[in-house]
């Protein structure tokens, strides 16, 4: 259950719309089913009242939409950001993707979001989902009404949440959380501990599922190039579909590298992947390497910091040292 209610968010949005602070509100509305939410831009209070939702399924990070909407619209936009979303927000500001003054950030505490995939794995034929405290009451076609604990349905990224403290806001609802001492690098370490053959087999299997829908790229708040290298016919690597295993790797390696040092680890890539590839483990590998070799760095923790891959020190370790670092461990 979330610690602030839909009504809290709604009241804030209505108030800011009414007093002219903002002209639009970027939030969520119910998706096709109760366990889905669609990012939605509201300008009309009545629509806001009827369609706005805030529940355990508002996982979508709204920060990237700010680029598009601030370009398209006049006035100021109110956006609801969960703690992890605020890191993306800061990173976008660092990269000058929109102006800070155009946005009114309402920080929303988050107790972790439920994963529809986990829900669907536990309940077949879901007719409705109602939140009841820390549980969801799930009406199904085949097993009647079931009660499932939200805690058992949390998204993987929420289980290793890096921070419940907002990195930016103009107005905070509820209580501020703390930066978490999360075990988010454990999975990376587990892969590192495998033999090269096992690692190869692991990634071969995962990446061969890729259908190159580009959802990971299109949702990624760090992927904001006006034209992506993979969509540029003169780049030499442009491709619509991964023709073979090489191109699957090429796409994911290069994409991860392009966002390395800028990726805030929001986990949207893995959330949207229709094939369930744990893409965040690629980005997290870079974060781990950066932390271990160049000093701990959290992209988006502050505005205006220099990303590690456009920076250096005179005594950085050599590439070989970096690659061999884990061997003795």
């Amino acid at each position, binding site marked *: 259950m979330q610690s602030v209610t839909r009504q809290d968010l709604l009241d804030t949005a209505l108030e800011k719309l009414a007093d002219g602070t903002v002209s639009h509100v970027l939030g969520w509305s119910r*998706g*096709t*089913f109760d366990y*889905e*939410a*669609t*990012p*939605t*831009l509201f300008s009309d209070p009545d629509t806001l009242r009827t369609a706005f939702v805030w529940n355990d399924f508002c996982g*979508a990070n709204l920060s990237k*939409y700010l680029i598009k909407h601030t370009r398209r619209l006049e006035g100021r936009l109110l956006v609801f950001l969960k703690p992890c979303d605020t890191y993306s927000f800061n990173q976008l500001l660092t990269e000058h993707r929109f102006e800070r003054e155009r946005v009114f950030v309402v920080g929303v505490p988050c107790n972790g979001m439920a994963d529809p*995939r986990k829900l*669907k*794995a536990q309940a*077949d*034929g*879901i*007719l409705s989902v109602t939140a009841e405290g820390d549980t969801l009451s799930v009406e199904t*076609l*085949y097993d009647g009404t079931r009660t499932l604990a939200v805690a058992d349905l949390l998204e993987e990224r929420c289980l290793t949440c890096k921070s419940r403290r907002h990195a930016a806001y103009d107005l905070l609802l509820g209580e501020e959380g703390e930066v978490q001492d999360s075990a988010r690098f454990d999975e990376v370490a587990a892969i590192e501990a495998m033999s090269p053959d096992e690692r190869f087999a692991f990634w071969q299997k995962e990446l061969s*599922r890729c*259908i*190159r*829908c*580009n*959802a990971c*790229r*299109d*949702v990624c708040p760090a992927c904001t190039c006006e034209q992506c290298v993979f*969509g540029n016919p003169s780049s030499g690597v442009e*491709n*619509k*579909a*991964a*023709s*073979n295993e090489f191109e699957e790797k090429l796409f994911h390696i290069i994409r991860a590298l392009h966002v390395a040092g800028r990726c805030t680890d929001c986990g949207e890539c893995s*959330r*949207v992947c*229709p*094939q*369930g590839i744990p893409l965040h483990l690629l980005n997290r590998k870079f974060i781990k390497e950066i932390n271990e070799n160049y000093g701990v760095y959290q992209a988006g923790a502050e505005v205006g910091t220099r990303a590690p891959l456009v920076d250096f020190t005179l005594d950085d370790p050599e590439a070989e040292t970096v690659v061999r670092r884990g061997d003795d461990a």
Partner: protein
Amino acid sequence: MRKCALSVMPDLLRAVAEATPLYLPVDTDKGDALFTRWFEGADWSGACNTARGPKDLFFPQTEDLVAFKTAGKTVEVLDIRREQEDFVVFGVRPCDVKAIEVLDRVFLSEPVDSFYAARRNHALIVTAACSRPTETCFCGTFGIDPTALCGDVTVWKTEDHVYWQAATEQGERFLAALDGFLEDADDTAVTAQRAQTAALLSRLPLHSLRADAFGGGKTEAFFDHPAWDTLSQSCLGCGTCTFVCPTCQCYDIKDFDTGHGVVRYRCWDSCMYSDFTKMAHGNPRLTQKERFRQRFMHKLVYYPENNDGLFSCVGCGRCLAKCPISMNIATVMNTLGGDAR
């Protein structure tokens, strides 16, 4: 009608696979199922449907069309098509069977696409009737009965038996070859299951979704509808919906320089991509709104207009399940269908 015990299915499928390459839905460790070439120990998945349709088997994500050898000013065209062998696709859901019909009308209409045609002509389709529809299913919207006979052969799986019925001559021959596994059966169990499934279908959340407002000749009614703006507003412009769609058939043709020749291949393309219609002198679909509109207008209006009213959506529900922002054809139909002008 013929039947076999559920317990003999592994042996039966092995026998099929030993005679002809066999593809069937197999569970993955991701909790979904995919059409997979039969292997020893492959279990027929009980999933409501596969993560992707059987489209890949007829229209693969990438396929080489032709090769060229160039030297100086000369060009040599190499026909690299290979003989297609017969194969069996087992366990195709009725919506996906309909989807193949949608693809057929594109690829088998003149001029025939020989690549697709070769695969179609060598395929035998065994349909698996539905008995456990899920919330994303809405095949009924497009007039599909997921319990009815279709494909070359249809199977109905009950608790302990699999019932078989051929729908085509080719299907009859297929069943004849499996004679050792099958015994005669009456259709009592199947009829009962069909009634049970029909009751379940009527309880699905999208059961009341209607396509009546759409179809050929409705371009003017929907093209300038104000709702496209809001519907497309949060679309990421990714290709998920098009790539999981069993009927989306748009493709791109590209050349790949291998270093010792050129291979011209085609690959799936998506009308959701910004460069889909981009030309040297501009782009007729400049924003995501136009691209989003194109996809749904094509499924609901343009395609039926060119194909005797057949919609190019079969209600399989994959795009509903996979869209990162939960925006899909059901929402589009609900929004537009309510107030067609």
